């Protein structure tokens, strides 16, 4: 399993001051694969008005701080998500939406949908629900802000420390050379 414990990686010193500004200005990149994408427009616009917290949608991974995985993730899009995540600049955070990235949700037995996102990317926060309502999303964002302020949202550091472990998991799914199930012929 994972190498280092969470305590060693906590933000210290000057980072704590910067964290105040970071939590106030989270720019997000939403990866719209699943059904959760439809919950975001009301969260962004006047009904729930996410911009109050200084959040806003961004067009490219280079500019964004926050990667939203909105819903189920197929193997093919997992590859793109990993590309996207690695293009983002530190500090960066990942939020998983709904039950699908936690345990597969209703796709628990699907041959093309991954079950646990945390095996492949460091997830800082999961918002459960199928799908979460905008209230739950806002609640999740405020929790993430608290985590950032305390310096506990350190997923990107974990990813760097345990790079081999994450890469091994990713390769297991993406670069297979043998069949998974034995062919009984």
């Amino acid at each position, binding site marked *: 399993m994972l190498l280092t414990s969470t305590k060693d990686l906590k933000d210290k010193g000057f980072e704590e001051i910067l964290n105040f500004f970071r939590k106030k200005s989270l720019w997000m990149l939403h990866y719209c694969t699943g059904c959760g994408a439809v919950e975001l427009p009301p969260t962004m616009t006047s009904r729930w008005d996410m911009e109050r917290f200084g959040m806003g949608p961004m067009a490219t991974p280079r500019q964004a701080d926050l990667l939203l995985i909105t819903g189920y993730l197929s193997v*093919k899009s997992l*590859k793109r998500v990993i590309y996207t995540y690695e293009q983002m600049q530190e500090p960066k955070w990942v939020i998983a939406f709904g039950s699908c990235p936690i345990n*597969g949700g209703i796709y*628990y*037995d699907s041959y093309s949908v991954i*079950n646990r996102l945390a095996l492949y990317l460091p997830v800082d926060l999961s918002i459960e629900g199928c799908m979460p309502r905008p209230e739950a999303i806002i609640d999740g964002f405020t929790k993430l802000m608290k985590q950032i302020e305390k310096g506990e949202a350190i997923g990107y550091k974990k990813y760097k420390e345990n790079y081999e472990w994450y890469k091994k998991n990713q390769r297991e*799914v993406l670069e297979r050379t043998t*069949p998974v*199930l034995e*062919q009984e012929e």
Partner: protein
Amino acid sequence: MEQKELIKYIQENFKYDKNIQKIDDKQFSITVEKDKILNILSFLKLLDFKQLALITAVDWIKENRFEVVYILFSYSHIQQILVKTFIDRDKPEIETIKTLWEVASMYERDVHEFFGIDFIGNDDKRPLILHNWKDKPPLRKDFDSLKYSNKIFGKFKKDEEND
């Protein structure tokens, strides 16, 4: 033409064995032999069924055969026809129809990927949707999806530490 007239016309003019069944007011199905599939499809194309909406398949595992379904639509008759044929499960082969409809080569590529049916004459067998697939075609009934999912994506355990 109305549906009744259409069915009557096909009964009289298509000489080979067939079994026509009405599904509802807007669609009916025709079941033919495997080697007559090009005949019936070109016959229907001349009858103004110009659009090939889909090619798909059904795995009848107990009877050990695949059912290949061609769905045709006509804008002038407002009718949909399901042309069906059965092929042996141990030797899943059928002639391609990409000479009749160019789009069929894409559908056949899809059916080949998900059911492992070979379309003779269509050499385009590159994977279309699945990523790096090494197992048996996933929509066959003897493919255990849950077992596959648990083995590769990991089974979710309740007591696992949520890191």
